[in-house]
């Protein structure tokens, strides 16, 4: 069933190359109205917790699109699109297909989707490997005045302000240097993320 109040929030800094993947996905969604139901909201955010919470407050479904650093050992390769969903039972973000350690308090397993395990590493797509960490390795700002999306989830949970469903989609970045524009691999992952969000909305 399509959620009644859904919001897609692109998080990132468009002046730090692939950290702008989240906002790029939101721009692509805005240019593809057919991808989303009419009531879905689109937003871009720097990830500052209180602003992020304000954006997803009361939503049936919130999809946060962010960038993550590559971690080849965990199967997270540039251009992959990773997916996690908040699971209140375990109090963590859980990758929905692989590696979730059911019932493991605080464990976040990463992530993965329907990718073909034989896919070419150079092609964008949905990452096939599982990843284990305390939370997705979202690119968090260094300044503690400006806490990142992970802190937003913790703060929202403490205040009972998490959306009914919280999905985190992350584009694995290749280049987080200075300047606008995505790397070729991250750019190619944008339509993959758009398709994934459209599927989440159905």
């Amino acid at each position, binding site marked *: 069933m399509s959620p009644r109040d859904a919001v897609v929030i692109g998080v990132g800094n468009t002046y730090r190359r692939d950290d702008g993947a989240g906002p790029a996905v939101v721009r692509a969604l805005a240019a593809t109205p057919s991808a989303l139901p009419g009531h879905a909201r689109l937003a871009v955010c720097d990830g500052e917790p*209180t602003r992020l919470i304000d954006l997803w407050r009361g939503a049936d479904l919130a999809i946060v699109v962010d960038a993550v650093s590559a971690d080849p050992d965990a199967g997270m390769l540039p251009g992959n699109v990773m997916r996690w969903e908040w699971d209140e039972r375990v109090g963590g973000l859980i990758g929905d297909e692989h590696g979730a350690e059911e019932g493991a308090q605080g464990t976040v397993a990463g992530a993965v989707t329907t990718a073909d395990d034989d896919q070419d590493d150079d092609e964008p797509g949905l990452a096939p490997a599982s990843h284990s960490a305390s939370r997705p390795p979202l690119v968090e700002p260094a300044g503690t005045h*400006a806490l990142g999306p992970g802190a937003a989830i913790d703060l929202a949970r403490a205040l009972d302000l998490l959306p009914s469903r919280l999905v985190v989609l992350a584009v694995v970045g290749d280049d987080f240097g200075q300047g606008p524009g995505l790397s070729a691999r991250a750019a190619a992952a944008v339509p993959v993320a758009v398709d994934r969000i459209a599927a989440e909305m159905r």
Partner: protein
Amino acid sequence: MSHVHERTLRVRSLARVEGEGAMRVKLVDGRVREARLDIYEPPRFFEAFLRGRAYTEAPDITARVCGICPVAYQTSACRAMEDACGVRVQGQLAELRRLLYCGEWIESHALHIHLLHAPDFLGCPDGIALARTHRAEVERGLAVKRIGNALMELLGGRAIHPVNVRLGGFHRLPTRAELRAFTPSLRQALDLALETTAWVAGFAFPEVSVDHRLVALDQGDRYPIDGGDLVRTDAGDVFEVRDFEDRVREHQVPHSTALHAELVGVGRYLTGPLARYTLHSSRLSPQAAAAAREAGLGPECRNPFRSIVVRAVETVYAIEEALRIVEDYDPDPSRRPAVDVPPRAGRGSGASEAPRGLLYHGYDLAADGVITRARIVPPTAQNQAAIETDLSTLVADHQDLDDAALTALCERAIRNHDPCISCAAHFLDLHVERT
């Protein structure tokens, strides 16, 4: 054989401050040898890369110095450029600038009070832990902050790095209906801010009084926010903003990528809430002044731990100011959203009161408006020496505390000033050495 007792306290990465910095305090035989606020955030070279850019670009470029106080950067840049070009923004455009700035004060102060500073008084490691133990208070803070964000979004186009500010005014003016729609939420925010003031007034404050020279802008009969042509000190000295670079000397210290500033002939000084309040409490609105009295503040406040109360009072004031401006706003449809600011060769100076203190900009322009020199003096750089003196005094007075307790007290002493290291390095990690 001599026995030297050395003790070192260190925090390698300070929490609940903006940017990257550390603290190091060294005691030798009970004397503080060194108290350093190490700012290791890489230098950001804004002054260098502004050279060669168009004068119209300075507000948007310098807004990028800080995600917490971009309006301060935009406002000081606009004032400096307009000064260089012989233009003065007045009337409703000036009022809208103050309204935008009120949004930034409300947002920044609400964040610092509820998520960054209050945990220090309530035994919580961070704002998230505080949200678990003081949910209603944190929710109240977020509600106030939301109003500040909304004001910035309406007037600035977005809450971070607003895009609607330009030299001479704005790209687009809000309609009267758009501003009037804010009245109910501002009235609610005022009630919430008054509750917050009463809440923080009840915290336990160490008895401390600092003797730093206090420095704030003088904005006439108003509590200084968005400008002022004069700089005033608590010693009664007054000078013009355009003389700021002659009266304030910056110098490099080895442990910081931020320059230290001192008043010529005086030395260290402090800007920010304590300075503003001590110099200008008589200019608060009646309701903010009453809130200050009820919170136990006298006409002056020199206890940095009580800065949380001053910020709460300033939040009340900013909301009242926002209400006043919103209710008085009556735009003339024939008026353009900005006055012309034609370039000319010359020097311009501008300053405003960022939430954490005085922010100065100075520029030299060529005849075609190209920037040939830029000077930005952010509040945290100005406050650095005063913060180090606070550390030194606290450590000397609390040597009976163990290292963990003393380190925690030192971190609090730093957060009292809501330092913005990212601005200053245009800085935190604590090292305490005891010998």
